[in-house]
């Protein structure tokens, strides 16, 4: 059974995403929501960790309405997939439990 993480703080001014990534393992998914989507930018201080963890089997997503709201459309790390509201629900259903980081 594997975990879904949600993170709602920007990686540029909070350690929230870093703290989350420290716990991530293969088959976990990370969904960035609200201000958390800033952590998915190519300029993100967590970019290296995201790319490494992605190679190790962690799936990364950014909630599309939040990305669009913030004008980040074409600025995201390749390893981060845009997720719709329905995708969010599906992620919750697919994983055994959800840890929300805020």
């Amino acid at each position, binding site marked *: *059974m*594997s*975990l879904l993480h949600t993170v709602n703080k920007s990686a540029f001014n909070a*350690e929230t995403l870093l*703290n989350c990534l*420290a*716990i*991530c*393992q293969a088959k*976990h998914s990370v969904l960035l929501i609200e201000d958390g989507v800033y952590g998915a930018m190519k300029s993100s201080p967590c970019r290296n960790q995201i790319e490494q963890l992605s190679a190790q089997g962690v799936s990364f997503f950014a909630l599309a309405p939040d990305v669009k709201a913030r004008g980040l459309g074409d600025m995201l790390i390749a390893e981060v997939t845009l997720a719709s509201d329905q995708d969010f629900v599906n992620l919750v259903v697919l994983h*055994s*439990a*959800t*840890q*929300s*980081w*805020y």
Partner: protein
Amino acid sequence: MTEIQTITAPKKILFVNTRAPYGSSMARDALDALLAASAYEQDLSVLFLGEAVFQLLRNQNPKAISMKNLAATLPVLPMYDIKQIYIQESALSSRGLSIDDLVLPAKVLGEDEIAALMDSQGAILSF
């Protein structure tokens, strides 16, 4: 015909704390939720990550800031049958703390163990 009662096994439920005490009420609110949960006879665990390790620090005295002492309540957890108490080792060491600085016995976990703990839960309550 005799009614067959299905006995459901207790669900594994993990309370995850990430906040320091007093600066926000999340630490207190999480503790209240945990104590209320103890009445439901489930398989409860509580985990202190990151800033939340400060909740367990000895010698707290919030009288001068007009708040209730969180650390004074924490030691009652085992009396409420909440004995699976875990703390993040790296959060302690990066804050210059050790288990000797804590008000109650907690099992110290590395990141892999924390992931495994979370992966084994039926539900997680995030505070």
